[in-house]
């Protein structure tokens, strides 16, 4: 299967610029008082940046479906690790670790 579409140099530069802007944005956002949303905003911006790198720099957008499945699987299994481990910590109640009721 031949490597078909490639992003153009213009696209690369646009993505690069976007990444720098988003970096500035995330630094700025961290100076605001948003409570729990600080973390959400920060991680959302980071995820957008990561997606830009993945899809354009790493050309995942133009890769085979199999490659996309592989990447999604990794993230899925990582979420399993985090999620099921949290299922323990969040429901311990008594523990000195995560205590959502504190």
């Amino acid at each position, binding site marked *: 299967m031949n490597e078909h579409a490639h992003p153009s140099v213009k696209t690369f530069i646009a993505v690069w610029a976007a990444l720098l802007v988003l970096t500035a944005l*995330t630094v700025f956002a961290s100076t605001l008082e948003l409570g729990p949303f600080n973390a959400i905003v920060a991680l959302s911006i980071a995820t957008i940046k990561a997606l830009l790198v993945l899809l354009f720099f790493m050309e995942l957008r133009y890769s085979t479906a199999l490659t996309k499945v592989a990447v999604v699987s990794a993230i899925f299994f990582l979420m399993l690790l985090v999620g099921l481990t949290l299922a323990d910590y969040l429901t311990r109640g008594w523990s000195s670790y995560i205590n959502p009721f504190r």
Partner: protein
Amino acid sequence: MTRSMHPARGLKLPDSETAVHNLRHHFADLEQQSATAKFGMWIFLVTEIMFFGGMFASYLIYRLSYYNAWVAGSQTMEIRYGTANTAVLICSSLTMVMAVHWAKLGSRKLTALFLILTLALGLAFLGIKAVEYHEHWVHHEVPGANFHFEHTGNYDPRHVSIFFSLYFAMTGMHALHMVIGAGLLTWLLIANARGRFSPEYNSPVELVGLYWHFVDIIWIYLFPLLYLISHHHPGG
């Protein structure tokens, strides 16, 4: 022919002899070989996601448990250094992508230029990191016997030690990957100088590119998680 493909100074025409020489016996053609190699690199990156993932999971558990200590630890970070490093890596990803671009077009000189720029930026990152590590060491922020944290808020300073443990483990592992990346870039420079790449055969450049971008993505997450938790006093 688009403008970017127009033969210009330094543009090397395809060398089919070099291409054939690189075909390994168990592949039918170079296309199968390079598609296979690329898929292999993606699977390797999957393992790297899981590798770093263990540390991210640990970070999350303790951040949820000891938020104030996490804030205190994060506030010792120099945001200027972190931001600069983030910008450096983003630029290095651009130069890496350009190196791959010119390798595919067969320009030995431009490939070399962008590989060198990528390497230089990577080394700059490591340099800034080294400065940061030194500062942490001087301020007794490295966990272990030398750790001492003046705590000024509603948290247990021992928990700040855990923050720093994860800070050093995560950024240290990231830095190690950068060093390996620098080694790979050097190897690419040497191979490129020897004329090993052509429009038919440039997999190694592409694969190192994938690795390099992945290491950049790890940093994209490390930066807000370690440097930008909160500006507010960890009073609880």
